[in-house]
């Protein structure tokens, strides 16, 4: 199986989908510069650099999507999405519904976020929950190169606007990616490790922290099940509930601010639908309610560590 970084998996997905469908176009902040091989193959009309103006990039994608193109736009860093909120939330997310279904918006927005480069809070802010809370949008955040390629291909084919977040800390991590056509449905979580004692639910880089925690827990005789959500909307409720009904214990982990994060939704979901199966209170682990610092130790401290996840899970298993 070929090995690709997550960054190259994005390029591979773009290449395959642009070959498959002439209506797929890509534009954004430096995409034609950094992925010049796309320009070489598909031409300067389908792959374009843009001004550093996120609002008009996103708005142009919305208009183009409504009229039959399938744009993929690169807005670089997730906090820059603040400049594109009207276009993504008010236009892409709402104008299908408000028009009585006259339009659809098949567009993908790429943005990087997360700890790893010490870039500080205006380049590193895990804002994915904002978009989960906004109707009409889908939200994806993969943790491996293989999932990135398969999910991005599906997202490009989806007729809804998809926010596709790339974890900075995973960007240049290599991973095996199946050759050829390989798709994954949005809304399908992966059980990346099976266990009977406690469920660890996460997405993005903290999936790997959960896997490290599961290794540590195994050496202490605790079998942790690790779920990688992969997509946050649609959310694979069945896989989460099925696992918690089996283990009776849940730790939800993400790098984003714990306050009103995805973890809160998952905790509520489990409390509503699997309360009787719980053997211990639900634990949420997430970033603090503070902007992320550039300073390396502070940046790293904003991310739930494998040790913290291990401790939380062990405490749950002792109750």
């Amino acid at each position, binding site marked *: 199986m070929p090995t690709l970084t997550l960054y190259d998996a994005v390029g591979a997905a773009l290449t395959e989908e642009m070959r498959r469908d002439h209506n797929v176009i890509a534009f954004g902040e430096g995409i034609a510069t950094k992925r010049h091989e796309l320009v070489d193959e598909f031409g300067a009309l389908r792959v374009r650099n843009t001004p550093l103006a996120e609002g008009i990039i996103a708005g142009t994608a919305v208009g*183009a999507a409504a009229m039959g193109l399938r744009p993929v736009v690169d807005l670089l860093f997730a906090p820059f999405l603040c400049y594109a909120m009207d276009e993504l939330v008010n236009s892409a997310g709402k104008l299908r519904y408000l028009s009585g279904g006259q339009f659809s*918006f098949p567009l993908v927005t790429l943005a990087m976020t997360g700890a790893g480069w010490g870039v500080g809070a205006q380049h590193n802010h895990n804002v994915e929950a904002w978009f989960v809370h906004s109707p009409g949008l889908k939200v994806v955040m993969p943790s491996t190169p293989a999932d990135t390629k398969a999910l991005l291909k599906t997202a490009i084919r989806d007729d809804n606007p998809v926010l596709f977040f790339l974890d900075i800390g995973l960007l240049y991590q290599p991973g095996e990616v199946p050759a050829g056509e390989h798709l994954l449905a949005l809304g399908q979580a992966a059980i990346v490790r099976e266990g009977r004692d406690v469920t660890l639910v996460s997405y993005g880089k903290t999936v790997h922290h959960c896997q490290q925690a599961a290794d540590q827990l195994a050496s202490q005789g605790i079998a942790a099940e690790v779920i990688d959500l992969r997509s946050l909307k649609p959310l694979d409720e069945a896989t989460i509930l099925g696992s918690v009904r089996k283990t009776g214990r849940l730790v939800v982990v993400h790098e984003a601010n714990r306050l009103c994060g995805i973890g809160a939704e998952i905790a509520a979901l489990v409390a509503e639908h699997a309360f009787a199966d719980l053997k211990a209170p639900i634990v949420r682990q997430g970033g603090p309610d503070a902007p992320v610092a550039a300073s390396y130790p502070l940046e790293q401290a904003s991310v739930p560590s494998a040790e913290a996840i291990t401790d939380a899970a062990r405490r749950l298993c002792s109750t």
Partner: protein
Amino acid sequence: MTPKPPANNPQQLLEQMLLIRAYEEAIVNGSAAGRMPGTCTSVGQEAAAVGVVNALAAEDLILTNHRSAGHLLARGADPGRLLAEVMGRRDGYCKGKSGSLHISAKELGVVLTSTIVGAELSMAPGVALAQSMLGRPGIVVCFFGDGAACEGSFHESLNLAALWNLPILYVCENNHWQAFVHRREAMSREHVAEWATGYGIPARTVDGNDVFAVLEAAQAAAAQVRESGRPCLLETTTYRTRGHLEPDDQGYVDKAELANWLARDPITTSRARLLADGLLSQAQAAAMADEVASRIAVAQAFAEASPFPAADELTRDAYA
């Protein structure tokens, strides 16, 4: 339903303006009586809408905003379906989910209407990009106000359209009011057209209350966009003679300024001109008014008879 062919005589332009006025007055009255929601009317701006829309071809696409009644009706929208939409009824153009503020009618080429001031400007380049990349013939016409011209999206849109050679006719309806703020308080320049020239976009200002002048200017501008494949801007200078949103006592409006513009009402002046030029008789004018009143009465009856959306419409079309 498809877009109405452009008017081929000046009487039709007058009749379209009368229809728009009567339609919006029906909403104003219905709103005052508690039978309809309040809306943002375009009363006083009819010539600016009718003049531009009648300069367009059937394949051209229109993006508009919350003050859209003129654009939609001039394009041939059924006033009954429009009123049904305003009243949140099933037979509206958007199944009652839009209300008055974001009515799109794809069948008429009126696409992606947004009530967020400036959003039409942000989406227009993408619509034009699709037109050119997919080899479709129509140009894109984007209606916005002087308020939207003060949004960043105006400047980003013009820059990109000029940079990427997009076939967009930007039409700024400079109606002097940005919600409750006079444009003098909000704009660093007198005219939006001045800003467009800074982006290398040909721009022209026209008396937006003279439907014949607007038509001629819009025909020239649309032809320029069609031939060059590049953007142009037309600024129609007009005046919002009613409030921002019904009801509105307009206590903040300078009375002398309003009176001056009311004396230049686009319907009164164009009717007087047609009468003076012998292109319309008093009897024809009266018959035209009766015809419009009767169309609006039929439209209102249709809208009131239309049912509200079924409960299962609550979440339908949130996702494709």
